[in-house]
């Protein structure tokens, strides 16, 4: 028994050895907040095409910023990727990124979806929208995010915790549009209209609407898509019972956040990293994003998926993404004051 234990330990130690192997011919290291299975498939495609291996570290965007800061010039990272525009802006402001030079990117991506100094570029868009029950919400009742503060929604809303970055980003745009004071009052009123204290994930908010607990949920579009294509028939039923509404279509547009990436300042493989970004922005991959993760492509020429087409075109808020980064702390402070947990 002791022998067996010892041997298994040796085996375990042996398994560790490959980690310290010398670097392969060409590889890039990606620090990413995106934790989608689909991303791994994309990386494999990239390797097949170019022979460049993509090594990945996945963690929350701000945790990765801390790690980049502490690792300094010795970081193995070449690329920093987030699922939120604010994170990109904070990385830039922390001096962690270097500008890219790529005519392909400049041409593919609209100027609003990349950093003016070319330190980061968006790869996909995700819209934070209202998901409602067509059975209980009359047409015309829904209009704007601001309208959710109206007393008519008392006991009819659900949303997740304000610790979530998606809610924090939405809040920064509300602050930007209406000012801090109004935004704080808005958050307090919305919290008051909620049928239950914030909890669960976006998916759980949608389910709360489909099960009849609430009438309207704040959620990202692709969560609805994931429910629609789930393996669990209960999930598909839940998705069928709700509809998407894009708010503020008359005004600034629905809140759109981005997933994007920038090249790490100390990277010595900027060329490879740029090649990778260009690959991700190719129409082939962009259309795959629309199909697989149900995020919106940033490339104007890429195809939307059927589900996205069904949801329909919409006007997007084109607030600068630096706002998301700048106002994040303020947003959390206002949430704290408004009592939105």
């Amino acid at each position: 028994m002791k022998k067996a234990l010892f041997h298994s330990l040796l085996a375990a130690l042996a398994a560790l050895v490959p980690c310290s192997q010398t670097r392969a011919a060409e590889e890039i290291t990606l620090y990413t907040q995106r934790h989608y299975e689909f991303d791994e498939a994309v990386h494999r495609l990239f390797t097949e095409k170019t022979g460049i291996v993509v090594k990945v570290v996945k963690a929350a965007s701000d945790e990765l910023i801390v790690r980049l800061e502490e690792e300094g010039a010795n970081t193995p990272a070449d690329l920093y990727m987030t699922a939120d525009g604010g994170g990109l802006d904070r990385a830039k402001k922390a001096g962690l990124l270097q500008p890219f030079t790529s005519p392909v990117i400049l041409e593919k991506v609209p100027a609003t979806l990349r950093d003016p100094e070319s330190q980061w570029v968006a790869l996909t868009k995700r819209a934070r929208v209202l998901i409602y029950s067509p059975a209980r919400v009359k047409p015309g009742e829904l209009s704007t995010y601001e309208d959710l503060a109206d007393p008519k929604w008392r006991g009819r809303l659900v949303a997740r915790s304000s610790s979530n970055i998606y809610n924090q980003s939405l809040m920064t745009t509300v602050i930007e549009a209406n000012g801090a004071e109004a935004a704080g009052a808005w958050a307090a009123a919305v919290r008051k209209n909620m049928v239950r204290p914030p909890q669960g994930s976006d998916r759980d908010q949608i389910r709360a609407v489909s099960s009849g607990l609430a009438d309207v949920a704040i959620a990202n579009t692709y969560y609805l898509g994931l429910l629609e294509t789930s393996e669990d028939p209960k999930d598909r039923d839940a998705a069928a019972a709700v509809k998407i509404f894009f708010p503020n279509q008359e005004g600034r547009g629905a809140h759109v956040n981005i997933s994007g990436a920038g090249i790490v300042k100390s990277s010595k493989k900027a060329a490879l990293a740029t090649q990778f970004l260009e690959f991700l922005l190719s129409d082939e991959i962009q259309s795959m994003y629309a199909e697989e993760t149900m995020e919106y492509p940033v490339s104007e020429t890429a195809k939307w998926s059927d589900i996205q087409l069904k949801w329909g075109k919409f006007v997007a808020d084109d607030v600068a993404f630096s706002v998301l980064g700048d106002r994040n702390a303020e947003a959390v402070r206002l949430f704290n004051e408004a009592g939105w947990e």
Partner: protein
Amino acid sequence: MAITPQAPALPIVAPVADRRSLPSRWRLRWRGDRWGAGAALLTGIIALPLLAILFYLGQESVEWNHLAETVLVRYLTNTLILVVGVSLLVLVMGVVPAWLVTTCEFRGRRLLSWALILPLAIPTYIAAFVFYQGPEAAIPMMIKIRLRFGVEAFLLAEQVIRYGLLIVMLAAVLYPYVYLACCSAFSRQSRAVIEAARCLGDSPGRAFFRAALPMARPGIVAGVALVIMEVINDYGAVHFFGVPTLTEGIFRTWFGMGDKVAALRLAGIMMLVVAALLAVEQWLRGRARYVEADAGSIPMKRLPLRGGKAILALLACFAPVALGFLFPVGRLLHWAGLHLLSDAGSGFPAGMALVRGLGLALATAFVVTALAALFMYAVRLRESRLRRALGRIAGMGYATPGAVIAVGVLVVFGTLDRFELPLLPLVSGTLFVIAFAYMVRFFAIPLQFTRAGLERIGKPLEEASRLLGHPPLQTFLRVDLPLLRAPLIAAGMLLFVDILKELPLTLILRPANFETLATTAYSLASEARLQACAVPALLIIAVGAVGLLFMNRWLQPPLKNE
């Protein structure tokens, strides 16, 4: 193993004249000077990340006043509600089955005695997904309540169900800490004491409350202390249930508001709470020596139960297993089945990376356990307040949130790397860093086990060995180590399971292309892909359960009696 004893290599008898001139007070005494220095050094290394964190504490905080005015009270009340609720519940769920299993005989006892530890294999963040089905399933009922009794009643019911379920869920997966501690306490109690209580007119039940329970108090307290630390440290489950505690506050303040200092002050409050708990536990333990029966006493003979009593006992032991293990595993199996039957369940991601994750957990558990055993031996070699303090400091990581430790470790290694020491390879972003962070986080576990083990071995055996000519290291290898085998294997396994379950620290520190089952399960779950997430979740539970059963086997008395 070719370990040559290096400890005091002294001349057997020193000529008096040579030694006279040396001022003795300026020299360390022979005993354990190297051991003591080693222990102090290790403590220093372990404390380094925590110190790095403390360094930030003194700095100016922008948001602290804001936090104090808005959310601090809520964080504290929520933390307190959970701590009290879960503590009370684990007492019932842990102590009662432990008592039944160690002192009574009934059908199914043997099976349940080890099944009762299985919930430890389930990480709280996974249990949270499963148990959150509860509030979802209750929605139709909630709607009825709102229609019939109004919004206030509804909100109250919602609160009660959510907090209640969270408490039940945490207790259901954490009670084994108390169960294990109680089993060992009860099984070591002398039959004579309980019999004395019976002779003095107590029924078995009264004897339990008046004699067995008070005697087991130190063990119970130790178990509950572990549970409380896990509760305070929990991050995934409380977030999911919308019950923000201090830990969630730390993350929110640090990453959402960018105020490191305020976040660390929250962590500081948390560590104070835990330090106070540890101090109480220490105090109770310090007195416990007079309470516990000595190891050589006659073990309890189990009381056979029949009929209704046997069924009740069976139910009392089965209920925690059902709630903490069978229910979540059943749900996960259901989801995993849905996933594997659908065409989406084709490939399992990151196979090789997972093997490495397992390898790392196993190797780290082994090395850290060995270090902890040597460390505790050094601390006990010459007991002093200083050395006991070393032990406490080295165990502080257990009371610190994983993410905070991760950042401390990053600061330490980042600083080291910046010096670009010629002999030191760049360590940032390697497995060494994450293994070290695990050690900082979990050092308390093997420390506790070793301490208990060494206490049971007792000083005289070591002294006998020393007098028979074996210096400390040899004594450790030849006497303590063989006798510590059971507790060390148990500690190693528990450590292995804990590392396997660990999430926030792993997420921040893992090297490129490195996955553990926990990170895989987490990324799938945060994609809201519960069905796909069920597969790695079940794997964690399976590996963890095997580890725990292995541990339980070794916890049985090591020597075969006639």
